[in-house]
């Protein structure tokens, strides 16, 4: 084969000489420029933050550039606690548990579960989409939005999310996010996002739909001023402890501590088998 080479040129595009950041400053040691004498997060010495502020304060600072007020920090912490564990039936936890019981390197359990939790259905991408939806529609009547969404065509089976972050699970209203939303709504830090979401959820209730964890996180993050992209990642972060804990619980267990389906419960369609 003789290949006629195509002419390829470098684009006339200027790349930065250095990576830039507004988040973190590392003051070098005088003895070794690779080692850090002091780390500053948005101008604050991290060691001073460690002594004076809470984890939630610094988490908020990291993403938003300023420390939260007490109401914001408390609201964020309530959400982080309430969604700390998706539970052992959740696909993200189950991925971590499957890996653990099959002797996967335990350092991989968390990234495995978080990858599963990255999706557009009950995952990080749905949080981001839901936050964008909220940003675009907070000025509109949630009752009308719900009616419009419900007027669309839906598949006959499976979970329905007519609005990102809102819908049903297993045909019904997901009760946990509903209860968490009720608590968060009573908090001083709650704002327009949670209020709008609650009205929407009330309207959807008639159709056995309501808050999903993703919508709840999205509304709370919106009220706290996080960006949609940050919201997706923070949703993964808040679920991370549960995903890791459930994985580690099975890490030392024999492989038969979890089901491995027998042939009666793993049904191969006739057309998939060799005739």
């Amino acid at each position, binding site marked *: *084969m003789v*290949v*006629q*080479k*195509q002419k*390829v*040129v*470098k*684009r006339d*595009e200027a790349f*930065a000489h*250095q990576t*830039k*950041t*507004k988040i*973190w400053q*590392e*003051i070098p040691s005088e003895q070794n*420029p*690779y080692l*850090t004498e002091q780390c*500053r997060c948005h101008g*604050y*010495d991290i060691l*001073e933050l460690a002594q*004076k502020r809470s984890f939630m304060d610094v988490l908020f600072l990291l993403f938003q*550039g300023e420390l939260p*007020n*007490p109401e914001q920090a408390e609201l964020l912490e309530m959400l982080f606690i309430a969604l700390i564990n998706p539970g052992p039936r959740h696909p993200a936890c189950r991925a971590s548990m499957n890996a653990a019981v099959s002797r996967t*390197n335990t*350092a*991989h359990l968390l*990234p495995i579960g978080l990858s599963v939790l990255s999706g557009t259905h009950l995952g990080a991408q749905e949080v981001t989409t839901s936050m964008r939806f909220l940003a675009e529609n907070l000025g509109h009547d949630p009752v009308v939005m719900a009616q419009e969404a419900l007027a669309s*065509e*839906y*598949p*006959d*089976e*499976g979970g*329905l999310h007519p609005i990102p972050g809102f819908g049903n699970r*297993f*045909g*019904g209203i997901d009760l946990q996010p509903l209860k968490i939303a009720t608590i968060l709504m009573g908090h001083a830090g709650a704002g327009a996002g949670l209020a709008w979401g609650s009205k929407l959820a009330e309207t959807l*209730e*008639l*159709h*056995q*739909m309501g808050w999903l964890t993703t919508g709840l996180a999205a509304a709370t993050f919106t009220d706290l001023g996080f960006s949609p992209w940050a919201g997706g990642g923070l949703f993964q972060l808040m679920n991370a402890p549960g995903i890791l804990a459930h994985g580690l619980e099975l890490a030392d267990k024999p492989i038969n501590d979890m089901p491995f*389906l027998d*042939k009666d*419960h*793993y*049904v*191969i*369609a006739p*057309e*998939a*088998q*060799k*005739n």
Partner: protein
Amino acid sequence: MSLPLKHKKTDTSFWDKRRGVIHTKNGGLVIGEAVYSHGYDMMEDLVGQASYFQVMVLNVTGRLPERRLADWLEALFICLSYPDARIWCNQIGSLSGTLRATPVAAISSGILASDSRMYGPGVAQRGMEFIIQARLAQQEGITPEKIIDNYPRRHSEQPPRIPGYFRPVALGDERIAPMECLANHLGFKIGDHLALAYEIEKLMREIYHERMNLLGYCTAFLADQNFHACDIYRLLSIWVSSGINACYAEAADQPPESFFPLQCEDIDYQGKPRRPVPARN
């Protein structure tokens, strides 16, 4: 469908049918009998007879392609296997190697990075969707000029960033000619999608000085082979693995933390100056 109403016990029969059981049309292992994939006995029919890429297509799409298509696809994977640590996903392999992550973690992380809106498998589905839609439009009488004009763009004064017709860093693509040559050698003819892709490229060159890249070529080629857009995303999901592996291996064989080290001053801090931490209220 009619949506469920309140006060009725939830109908969970859809989930009940699936509870505790896996139904599959793929296949699987029947211990003591065979391992099946889409109607094939993998040990009898595939091992030693089909190529890995044929089996990959079979597993993803349910159809066993002819060998020459699998060979073309394998060559396509070579085209995204550059052992160059400057390429974003590959550098993740290097960074993993320098911190002694396992090769599996390194390659998985690098593959995740290639799920990008700019390059790699992340943009493949959109590239495929574009050419399939463009071909449908052409069949309805819309000209290639109009197809380009109609493509949504962020800024009206900028060229449309059509997936497959813009390549970051470089202009032009050294990979297309060898792939065309291989396709010709294997006896593939230029189909309707690829013919349209060439027309679009010609216009993009004339109007915007942009060229078709490998994605534009390969998605059009694969559309002519009747692949769906979602098939392509799935088939190409590990497209970059080999280049990442090369970069991981080189860094992992060097002393730890020796890959592309940065001094504190190498980062350009542009944030707030030092300030005292206020006490919590």
